[in-house]
């Protein structure tokens, strides 16, 4: 298998090229990624045989994608941050019309304040739009999961679009070695696009997305829910086939040193490597630490999470988005819901890594330190937000009597 050097954006473009889209629609809203322009290059160079539609907004990028894929071609688009937020309305249309679009999303912070940097506030805001969500930990995984996402999304019992999410800069601009299938190997795996269920064809007339009365709307949502349920099973089958063909293991959740762990963190995205590094350090000191990485966030692999964490005494879930107003961040909410009633240990939510603030080995050491304090009975609670500056309430104009 050829080895190539890609940054995350390049790996996403390579996966898209291997899937041979017929229509590409993309818009460079700030902050986008270089995916839109790389795709334009690939079309201009003849490496992708596609119509490139240089749309005037992210909203139109998704609208064009929906219209095009309904004619029976695979489409490609990509987005990030506020671009995804602008797309929100039409993301629901793609999902509800069961158009299995696969879209790389470079995770970058939502405004305000303006930021160009990484966090998960963009895709977490889309978590209930009806899209599958995969979160990558390496550039290699961007390529692998994108190729798999086509198979999972387009499966006739799933027909649900996918966001392949990867961290802005940490992955999008990080140059890494990527084992890349040949064009033929990839095509043999991804396979040509086959239109199913809903499509636009004068030879087989249907009207898509007309007004759905209340007597049927619940059932249409039920169908989508069943699509998610099947996606959980199909993902495992597709990952198994991918491993058999290409030798790399993909996961819905990845357990690291959890079998005998007393304390563990739950991570998502590129922070996970740093988390494992700190687990290794703690293990060298004789501390039974572990890590669980959420790779597939939608559908949420609740059973796998429960199984993986069943023996851990104190768990810290690290969210890379603020979850403002919620009891904890979105990943922690999901983990807690999955663990509820399972009789497992204590679960604490941690929020950090906002808008490009690095989640360093030091961050994880602090988090594990707090979890160990609880484990050893020295504390009852953990500090929810980590790596927050001491002068947090004194920057800008905020003045509060606290």
């Amino acid at each position, binding site marked *: 298998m050829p080895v190539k050097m890609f940054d995350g954006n390049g790996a996403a473009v390579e996966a898209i090229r291997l899937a041979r889209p017929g229509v590409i629609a993309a818009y460079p809203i700030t902050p986008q990624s270089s995916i839109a322009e790389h795709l334009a290059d690939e079309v201009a160079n003849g490496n992708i045989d596609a119509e490139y539609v240089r749309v005037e*907004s992210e*909203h139109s990028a998704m*609208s064009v994608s*929906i219209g095009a894929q309904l004619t029976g071609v695979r489409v490609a688009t990509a987005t990030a941050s506020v671009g995804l937020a602008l797309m929100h309305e039409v993301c629901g249309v793609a999902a509800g019309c069961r158009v299995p679009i696969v879209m790389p999303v470079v995770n970058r912070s939502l405004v305000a304040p303006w930021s160009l940097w990484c966090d998960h506030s963009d895709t977490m805001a889309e978590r209930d739009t009806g899209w599958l969500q995969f979160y990558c930990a390496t550039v290699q995984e961007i390529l692998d999961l994108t190729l798999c996402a086509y198979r999972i999304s387009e499966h006739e019992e799933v027909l649900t679009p996918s966001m392949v999410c990867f961290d802005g800069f940490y992955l999008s601009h990080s140059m890494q070695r990527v084992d890349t299938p040949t064009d033929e190997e990839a095509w043999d795996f991804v396979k040509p696009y086959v239109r199913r269920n809903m499509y636009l064809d004068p030879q087989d007339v249907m009207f*898509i997305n007309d007004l759905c*009365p209340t007597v049927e709307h619940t059932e249409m949502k039920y169908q989508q829910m069943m699509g998610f349920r099947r996606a959980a099973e199909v993902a495992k089958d597709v990952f198994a086939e991918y491993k058999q063909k290409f030798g790399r293991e993909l996961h819905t959740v990845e357990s690291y040193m959890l079998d005998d762990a007393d304390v563990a963190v739950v991570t998502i995205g590129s922070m996970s490597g740093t988390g494992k590094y700190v687990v290794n350090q703690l293990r060298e000191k004789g501390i039974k630490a572990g890590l669980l990485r959420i790779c597939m966030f939608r559908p949420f692999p609740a059973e796998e999470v429960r199984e993986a964490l069943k023996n851990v005494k104190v768990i810290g879930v690290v969210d890379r988005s603020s979850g403002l107003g919620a009891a904890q961040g979105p990943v922690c909410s999901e983990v807690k819901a999955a663990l509820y009633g399972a009789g497992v240990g204590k679960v604490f939510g941690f929020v950090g890594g906002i808008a490009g603030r690095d989640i360093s080995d030091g961050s994880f050491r602090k988090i594990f330190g707090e979890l160990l304090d609880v484990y050893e009975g020295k504390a009852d609670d953990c500090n929810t937000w980590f790596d927050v500056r001491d002068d947090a309430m004194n920057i800008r104009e905020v003045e509060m009597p606290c």
Partner: protein
Amino acid sequence: MLTYKVQPKGAVSPGISTCQGCMIDVIFRNVLEIMGDDTVLVVPPGCAAQFSGTGPEASVTVPGIQGNLENSAAIASGIANGFKHQGNDHTKVVAIAGDGGTVDIGLQSLSGAMERNENILYICYDNEAYMNTGIQGSSSTPLAASTTTTPAGKKVYNKDLIQIVMAHHVPYAATASIANIPDLRKKVQKARDIVGCRVLHIMSPCPTGWGYPSGKTVEVAREAINCGAWVLLEYENGKVTLGREPSELGKAEKYFSMQKRFKGASEEEIAAAGRHFAERYEYLKKLSAI
């Protein structure tokens, strides 16, 4: 696949529930008859959504999709590009949207589609407000017209859609009116056979929102042409051609008096509207002379 409960004459099912006196169904019937069966239709929510159907029942015999209020032109662009990629150069893609979905929230996606010269026919039926949702004012609502969001009458002029379209250098654009169906049909036929982004702007008075007896729709639309409130024109390869000269150019009194939405219009406003009609017409006439 469609199964027919009733075999319609033409592409639109009988019994479509537009308001009494509404001519949108006449637009749909004529457009779809001329475009033929090998057509895909895009409509946004709004009055046009009557033609998508409800639940398992479709209202038209051609395939289609109801998009969102602001993205008809973008969805149509996607469909056109999907067909193009598959070597299908025969299926026509038609978007039919109201003024709100065109000149307000849909202007951005229409502008993009026009600039890219997408191979679509975009039709705006203009009833000069958001009629389906309860007569809220749009940027197509004219000066002095009362709507539920301009209860004291609109204080500014409407946007000039056809001039916005012409500024995009599309291969073909035209205005039409339900008062002149033969002219409308001729323009749809011409648009059908042109490749690229074609735009038709069709006046369709709304008895519910404009406040006139439902039997008077054609009369009101005709009076709009007479006084210059609505100007029939074609824009083809950069050349503007005007329809016949309005017989009562600039005299807005009769047109205003036919409609309750102008009940609160002051004499100054009526005079200003009349001057606006006349000045706009003279400007378009100069354009047509170039």
